[in-house]
């Protein structure tokens, strides 16, 4: 499989994504967003708003645009 790496903010909705890079923000790590974590983008809010992600199919986190653009993900499979 050779899916290219993109940032979380631009990722397609409703696809299972694997996190490949996270900036060092301790709250991200504490929430469980680390390398290898699986996330699905559920909604994106215009005008500089956040993205809403489902993490490990367990809970939802809203991630501000300025953080989401720094998180790298790759597509694992379509849902």
């Amino acid at each position, binding site marked *: 499989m050779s899916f290219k790496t993109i940032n979380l903010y631009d990722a397609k909705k409703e696809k299972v994504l694997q996190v490949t890079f996270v900036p060092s*923000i*301790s*709250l*991200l*790590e*504490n*929430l*469980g967003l*680390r390398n290898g974590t699986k996330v699905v983008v*559920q*909604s*994106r*809010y*215009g*005008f*500089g*708003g*956040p993205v*809403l992600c489902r993490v*490990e*199919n*367990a*809970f*939802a*986190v*809203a*991630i*501000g*645009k*300025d*953080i989401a653009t720094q998180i790298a993900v790759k597509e694992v499979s379509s849902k």
Partner: protein
Amino acid sequence: MSHHHGNQSDEKVLNNPNKILLMGNPNVGKSIFFTELTGVHAISGNFTGTTVSFTQGQITLGGKEYTLIDVPGTYSLSPTSEAEAVAARFVQSGAAAIICVLDASNLERNLRLAMELTTYDIPIIYTLNMMDVAERKGVSVDVMQLMVDLGAPVIETIATKRQGLDKLIQSLEVVLKQAEGCEYSCNKCEGCPWAAAREICNRACTKDVNANPSFLDKLGDAMMKPKSGIPMAIFVMAAAIAIIVFGGRGLRAGAILPLVNNVIVPFFRNLFTSFVPEGVFQNILIGEFGIFVISFEWILALIFPYVLMFYVAFTFLEDTGFLPRMSVLFDNIMRKLGAQGGSLIHVLMGYGCAVPAIIGTRAATNRKERIVISAAIAFAIPCISQTGALMSLLAGYAWWMLPAMIAFSLVLFATVTIIVGKMVKGKVDPLLLEIPNMLMPNPKSYGRKLLTRMKHFLKDAQGPMMIAILLAALLAESGVLGIIADAAQPIVSGWLGLPAEAVTALILGIVRREMSVAPLLALDLNALQAFVGGAVSLMYLPCLSVFAILAKEFKAKVAVTIALSTIVVAIFVGGLINQVGQLFM
């Protein structure tokens, strides 16, 4: 309820070895357990950071007294906010036991904190909470397997429905007894807490992928989609405002005003005229502006109906999970203002009272965000007491005066947020917020929370009100008020265009916010004067309690700066509105 932070009593609580810590991730139900176990009411709500400081209460277990501590929720012991730092300090100080509350619907991340806790040699008892939400999501947990892996008791509970609490107490007594006199050992986590948490979770949890989402889950999801969520949020806000405005007005006219005018005030009037001779002293007690007349007319008849209706709506909304959804939907607007959506929760709390709102900003990950939002709340967010008074003030004029005042306050909020954001150095952290499942508020805890808040309001409002009225009466009777009014005449009458007596509002407004409005009600103002008076009061110094909390939470310098600038800005902008308004009148 005792809130403490950063002072000597902190040390006392930290050094107390007989304490039991109630810990867990944010928003897993700790405060509900606390209230049930101690009878001390801790305010709970369905969002991250309801408890930002600890609350303590006594609990008797096996004939021995313990102090139960409701520790702020934390994802990890490496804290990311002031509220989380409190949690880390508590574990480090040691305890007789920890009750670790786990959210069954989100076990892996919850176990991660548990893994960190196991390294501290403190007996732990686990409660597997939110079993109903887990079930709704198709997650089932093998409790026996979990107990084996954790090497400690695991009790299934549904805190919002009070299920499993008896078992928790029994188990806690056993654990405390076992821990006495012998070296405590449980399965300690060595190595990576995440890996260990995942392993345990994988062994204990099974997920049914075909689980049908419930109505609440669907509603929660719909509220998060921009297209459906924004109209729903606006509708909910509009409904809440309607409940407050019309409900408050109805309650006032239909029940409380007649009660005050026909029963309470005449009672005190008869009582005091029977033994207090006519004169100054009688006037101070039961004259037109007497303590026993005005305090009931203002607090009970003018303010209380709106306060009650505000908390009827707000208490419901905060238990459902609506507030964090607002944070997400409107993060873009807050970001444009230089803040972030997470603070919207505190702003909305500020419409009730600024004090818990400013304390609540401790959940923010960033100090700049705290100062910016606290300043904006002090300047531009009227508390419900003030809103009630403002509604009464503006009600006698054109219908559009109230919406105009709301629009003015929103513009003011945006302006203050932007300007303070530019003044305070540093950067605001972007939004990073867990969105909880939607929950239906439990009627019992809803009622109890509402009752607690009303008791607090009546207690907090009545005292300062009486002091302020006494102060006003003394100023008026001694003639000092006349001297101040003369001195302030150029500002109050010349610049603001208000009658000279309006200076009373500016003096009393220092004590409580609604009192910067209430004295204007008796002055027979024209529409422009009413609007100017309302606008000045909106911007003017928040109350003494807000000043105190600003000084406590930040430096005294911050509190003084905010207080002085509110006064200057209120008089300057209020005068501008008057001068511009004059051109059109």
